């Protein structure tokens, strides 16, 4: 009996810990949202975060998109040539990029860049008492620090995914036309034909979720950091790992629901 009870006990403990974490994150997110709708607002902070999350991530996002699009075109061509289906290259590139690779890769890249930076910055502010100082200076850290980050990520990530989609399709086009001898006009026509508004909407919905999780994980773990430099390090790792998992999990759920 003993090992069986121990087994169930350990499952129970994991479950309780997980539920506790979900509860704490939910409380954190709803506190931020309920405070964000009431003044004071911080438009300058929002702009600053839009620059940080969006503008400064563009080089990374652009490179990710172009490399992935190019590789995808080559792979599709190689696989398709075995059964005379190389003409599917433009269709698979455009759908693969817009529906899956664009949002997921951008989400993961930006999570690596942004969630970690947010967790490190807020975590340092926590352990050096700067967050307490904000409160004693009559400024709400949720409105001043968290809300601008969440809102900026919600706006910036979908925009970046649109840009990445365009660059990714261009990467595929580039390889197809200049290396695999596709007809340029024909390639673009097929691309246009397979690209639907629904796919773009889906990409935007996914990326809005990803943006929310990226900022939420960065802020939550930074905000709750404790225990000096080591604590900030832990918070940064936790932020990136949990953002990755939430992105991949939500991507799977949305895909299964939408296309299932």
């Amino acid at each position, binding site marked *: 009996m003993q090992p069986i009870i121990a087994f169930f006990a350990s499952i129970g403990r994991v479950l309780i810990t997980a539920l506790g974490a979900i509860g704490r994150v939910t409380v954190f997110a709803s506190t931020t949202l309920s405070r964000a709708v009431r003044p004071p607002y911080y438009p300058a902070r929002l702009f600053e975060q839009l620059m940080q999350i969006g503008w400064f991530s563009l080089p990374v996002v652009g490179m990710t998109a172009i490399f992935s699009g190019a590789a995808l075109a080559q792979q599709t061509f190689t696989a398709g040539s075995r059964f005379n289906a190389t003409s599917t290259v433009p269709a698979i590139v455009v759908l693969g990029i817009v529906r899956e690779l664009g949002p997921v890769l951008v989400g993961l890249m930006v999570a690596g860049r942004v969630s970690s930076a947010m967790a490190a910055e807020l975590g340092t502010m926590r352990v050096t*008492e*700067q967050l*307490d*100082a904000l*409160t004693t200076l*009559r*400024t709400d850290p949720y409105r*001043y620090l968290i809300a601008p980050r969440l809102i900026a990520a919600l706006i910036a990530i979908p925009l970046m995914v649109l840009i990445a989609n365009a660059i990714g399709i261009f990467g595929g086009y580039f390889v197809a036309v200049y290396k695999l001898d596709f007809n340029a006009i024909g390639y673009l026509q097929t691309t246009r034909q397979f690209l639907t508004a629904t796919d773009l909407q889906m990409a935007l919905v996914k990326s809005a979720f990803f943006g929310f999780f990226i900022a939420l994980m960065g802020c939550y773990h930074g905000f709750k950091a404790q225990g000096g430099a080591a604590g900030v390090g832990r918070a940064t790792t936790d932020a990136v790992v949990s953002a990755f998992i939430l992105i991949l999990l939500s991507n799977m759920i949305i895909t299964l629901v939408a296309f299932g």
Partner: protein
Amino acid sequence: MASEPKIILNDVGKAFGSNRVLDGVDLMIERGESMVIIGQSGSGKSVMLKCILGLIRPDRGEIRVDGEDLASMSTRDLERARAKFGMLFQGSALFDSLPIWRNVTFALTQGRMRDAANMRRIATENLERVGLDAKILDLRPSELSGGMQKRVALARAIAPRPEIIFFDEPTTGLDPIRADVINDLIVELVEELGVTALTITHDMASARKIAHRVAMLYQGRIVWTGPRDRLYDSGNPYVDQFVQGRAEGPIT
């Protein structure tokens, strides 16, 4: 009654898990008084301070400031009540992304950029009050020495003219001369601005200089309160051991 006490703590308790950090703290601080709380590291001094500031909610007890109980207030009322408080943090806690002048005027602008010329003037005035020069207005906190950071943090705490200022180990990490500069500033502020001051420290030289009255916190309770002059003949074994810094005694 001529004047009721500015701050009253009545049976304040706070536990983290099974660790009872505050176990029924009773304390009274008069208007315009400088009270110093002494006690070992980990005796709950910081937690007590954070409870009064409303950064931590106590589990039980009352914290009355001007007769209003902060412990049972809504978040919004607490925000309003905090306008009376200024706080000097142990590590200064300056915002390292902002220049000195925006740090000093933070409570007035709440982090927004407005009325820059006027704010720079206010920052200069407050920096002068703590003996610093307007030359540092545009520097970042990391470009200053620890002692100067402390003084900037003090200027930031007094800029909105609070009625009560809390000092968390104001002299820790400073050399004895710099520490004494801070002590002088605290004495000056209490006298000139008429503020009520609550300081926590384990620096006895500092306590002797800035306190009107001293209270000792031990194992989550106030074990002794008395005027500064009685600190060295308190007749209390805990206080005796602490002020003389002996390893043997009732405190282990």
